């Protein structure tokens, strides 16, 4: 093989490379007001509702092909940050934004609740086929490290007829900052004064004992693969992975199984007392059949949209979501919003404006 032939090969490949590069660099961007009036929107935030939002975007896209909306799950905090920096058009968060965050944002931000989720207690115990029952104090004590073995008297007291092994409990928590942890610790702070004092509520608490797994899927994976483990995760993950789910005693004294209906019941019970801006925690809700570790998840938007075309598409999408979109929730193990909350969310969407003019005619 001669030198010239080899150089030719190299030069040929380099030319192809450069040609492709130029081709890519010259592709026109889409963006709003591009070809044929397509509008592009980008949202980022919570990982928990991602599967549902992807379904919404796909279904909505079939009805409105000119609206190209993308959603990327990077975590609630990331969504809030990027919304404040205005690199995304809408954010998504499980926990509502704090007062300091709202004040430091460049504009007023609205919280629009979209669906409900439940944090469930899941475990891996060979030979235990019935669902275990947990009282609030029991969960707190296990996570505080005060109860160390599965056959501890406190556990067997609430679970008569179940033979529990004499093994150590391996506790699993979320290592990454997460809305799920925030909801779980919020619940524990409400039901256990010791937890509130020692640990508190937050997305990244200092867990007294246990192993940290990354993400809901990390916790489920670890629980599934390690015997004698207990963990907390979102309902969809436990159901999809066929993990057992514990019954939790709610504020009314009933042991409630986390299902879509009991979660919606928790939201309905709080509807009367929900504040105007819709930022609320519904853990440990009253209501006979309310599941006590439930929470809203929100989409966050600026009240006053800078771009009228984008704002209209966004408002219409949100409207479609809380009405038509709810019908897709149950299949994916998300609990739809109760009717009272939908009304309040409608009011929020109708208040969105662009330069003073409302985006939707209600």
């Amino acid at each position, binding site marked *: *093989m001669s030198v010239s032939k080899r150089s030719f*090969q*190299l030069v040929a*490949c380099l030319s192809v*490379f450069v040609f*492709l*590069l130029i*081709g*890519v*660099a010259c*592709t*026109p*961007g*889409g*963006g709003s007001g591009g070809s044929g009036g397509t509008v*592009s929107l*980008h949202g*980022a935030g919570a*990982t928990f509702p*991602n*599967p549902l939002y*992807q*379904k919404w*975007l*796909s*279904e909505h896209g079939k009805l409105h092909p000119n609206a*190209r909306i*993308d959603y*990327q*799950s*990077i975590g609630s905090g990331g969504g809030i940050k990027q919304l404040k*920096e*205005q*690199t995304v058009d809408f954010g998504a968060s499980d926990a509502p934004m704090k007062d300091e965050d709202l004040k430091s944002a460049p504009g007023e931000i609205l919280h629009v609740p979209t669906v409900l989720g439940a944090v469930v207690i899941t475990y891996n115990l060979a030979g235990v086929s019935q669902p275990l029952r947990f009282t609030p104090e029991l969960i707190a004590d296990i996570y505080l490290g005060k109860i160390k073995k599965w056959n501890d008297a406190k556990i067997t007291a609430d679970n008569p007829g179940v033979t529990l092994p004499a093994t150590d409990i391996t506790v699993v928590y979320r290592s990454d900052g997460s809305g799920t942890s925030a909801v779980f610790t919020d619940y524990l702070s409400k039901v256990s004064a010791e937890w509130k004092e020692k640990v508190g509520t937050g997305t990244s608490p200092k867990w007294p004992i246990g192993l940290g797994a990354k*993400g*809901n*899927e990390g916790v*489920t994976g670890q629980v599934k693969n390690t015997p004698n483990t207990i963990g907390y995760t*979102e309902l*969809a*993950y436990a*159901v*999809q*992975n066929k993990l057992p789910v514990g019954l939790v005693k709610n504020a009314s004294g009933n042991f409630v199984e986390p299902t879509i209906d009991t979660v919606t019941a928790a939201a309905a019970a709080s509807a009367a007392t929900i504040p105007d801006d819709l930022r609320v925690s519904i853990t440990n809700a009253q209501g006979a059949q309310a599941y006590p570790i439930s929470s809203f998840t929100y989409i966050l938007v600026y009240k006053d949209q800078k771009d009228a075309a984008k704002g209209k598409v966004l408002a219409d999408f949100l409207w479609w979501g809380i009405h038509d979109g709810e019908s897709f929730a149950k*299949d*994916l*193990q998300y609990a739809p919003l109760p009717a009272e909350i939908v009304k309040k969310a409608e009011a929020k969407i109708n208040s969105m404006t662009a330069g003073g003019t409302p985006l939707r005619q209600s």
Partner: protein
Amino acid sequence: MAYSSSDRIRRATSALMTSLTALCTLLAVSALLIILFYIAWQGVDSISIQFLTDTPRPVGEGGGIGNAILGSLVLLLVSSAIGLPLGICVGIYLSEVGSGRFAGAVRFIVDTLTGIPSIVTGVFVYTILVVPMRHFSALAGGVALALIMIPIVARTTEEMLKLVPHSLREGALALGAPQWRVTMGVVLPAAAPGIATGAMLAIARVSGETAPLLFTAFGSRFFSTSLNEPIASLTVQIYNYAISPYDEWHAQAWAATLVLMTLVLGINIIVRFLTRKRF
């Protein structure tokens, strides 16, 4: 022939060590095959023409990674275009041009760059490119990946250039070539296979990166080659699927990994072919 006992010890040591090296290789290859088989076992069922050409769809509707494949290729193109030339030039500087303490300092600084978690690079590019531009873009993704590539390419280039025997340089200089001709025309081609190794390692490394892309290229459900828009990529798609609760999406994640590795293998083979030595 009479072997003394020290001879026998030496031969035995040699036999032992050579079998150990063979064992190491066997273990490494086994580890790789175990991982590869696991990936293939989990994902091969999901691979189909539709999977390779369609866009992602919600759970239960199938869907594919077509736009992610295109996106990954675009990102590789952009990051290689920025990262490879810059990395090779830094390597040339460290080996051929620079001298003394300043070059030592540069080398040290480039070494430190290799240890930065990719998420930090991603956030850095987010701060300097995405926030001022007010939107995510494939260009930002390419820049972030290039920043990860450069130290790897620079260090391997430097090491490989240093390994070129001085006789080649001296011969070219003796023939009257200026320094730049010597470097570009003689030393670089001589070190080409080694530099290609560095380039391949860098490309393999960035093809597997997720965290920086989440903050720069963002992700997309649509086909796109525009540098000014967010773009899908195989790694982000794999990440999205892997962290979901659904078996169907998990299977797609494994299948996408298989596709990704085939892609990198393909690039590896092409570049190796172009930079092979005759002897």
